[in-house]
């Protein structure tokens, strides 16, 4: 049984750390974390992945023991979603489904409708049972993860459920949004290319 101490980290960092550790494989995991959102998010994430969760109160937090789990977890994604800072998926990281969002609009046609459909799509992800492992935002897609975006709240919730939300650094720089990322982390083209080529499936929007 391995121990992972995520006390003092703010969401979604606890879920992301737990996800990485579970995907590294090797039996059960004991997670030391703070009460409140980290405890709730990690519990929901682990149960969603089929783990049995046992809680034990500790001074200044909780210990969650995660056992069992979905067979597909070991050897899966090894990336890191950021908790607001720069975070790069590990080189060679392989994972299941990846969403590549290359525009802040969905489909061709009137801009206003396209933007509305994209927002609707991202918020609807919160209601579907099978989530992607990662969402990459490139080109105008990064505007969806930047300050002022109406889907920032939804992206944060997805992060808390273990989805790695990553925006292209070049694109953020181009739009002068590097300092105002509102959800997820920053990544580079090397990591994006590796993840796309290593993914089980890629959905491009």
């Amino acid at each position, binding site marked *: 049984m391995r121990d992972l101490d995520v006390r003092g980290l703010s969401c979604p960092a606890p879920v992301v750390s737990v996800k990485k550790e579970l995907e590294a494989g090797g039996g059960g995991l004991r997670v030391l974390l703070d009460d409140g959102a980290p405890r709730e998010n990690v519990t929901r994430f682990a149960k969603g992945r089929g783990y049995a969760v046992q809680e034990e109160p500790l001074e200044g937090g909780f210990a969650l023991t995660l056992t069992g789990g979905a067979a597909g977890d070991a050897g899966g994604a090894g990336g890191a979603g950021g908790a607001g800072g720069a975070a790069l998926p590990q080189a060679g990281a392989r994972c299941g489904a990846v969403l590549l969002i290359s525009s802040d609009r969905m489909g061709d046609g009137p801009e206003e409708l396209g933007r*509305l459909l994209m*927002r*609707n799509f991202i918020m*609807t992800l*919160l209601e579907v049972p099978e989530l992607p492992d990662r969402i990459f935002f490139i080109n105008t897609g990064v505007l969806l993860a930047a300050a002022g975006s*109406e889907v920032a*709240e*939804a992206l944060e919730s997805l992060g808390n459920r273990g989805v790695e939300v990553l925006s292209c650094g070049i694109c953020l720089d181009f739009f002068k949004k590097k300092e105002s990322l509102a959800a997820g982390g920053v990544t580079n083209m090397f990591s994006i290319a590796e993840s796309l080529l290593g993914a089980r499936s890629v959905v491009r929007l």
Partner: protein
Amino acid sequence: MVREGDYVAIFNSIHRVMEAERLLKERRLSILLIPAPRALAADCGLAIRYSEAARGEVEAALAGAGLLPRELYRRQGEDYTKVEEEL
């Protein structure tokens, strides 16, 4: 997306919901265009969410523009309760 006690307004068409969103944003009211919750089966698939605190101003603005929603619901626990009072 919808917190306990929030209101969810369902409109007749995509054009009305977009117009309502535009109007409420122009007034800087705290609302969010969201996918209509599955349980509420809106024709256009979209709804506007707002809180109790914003309700008065939101509904006054919508009434003034002739854009009142077709139906209004309130999140209570896991359910949505239809608000039957006259808007």
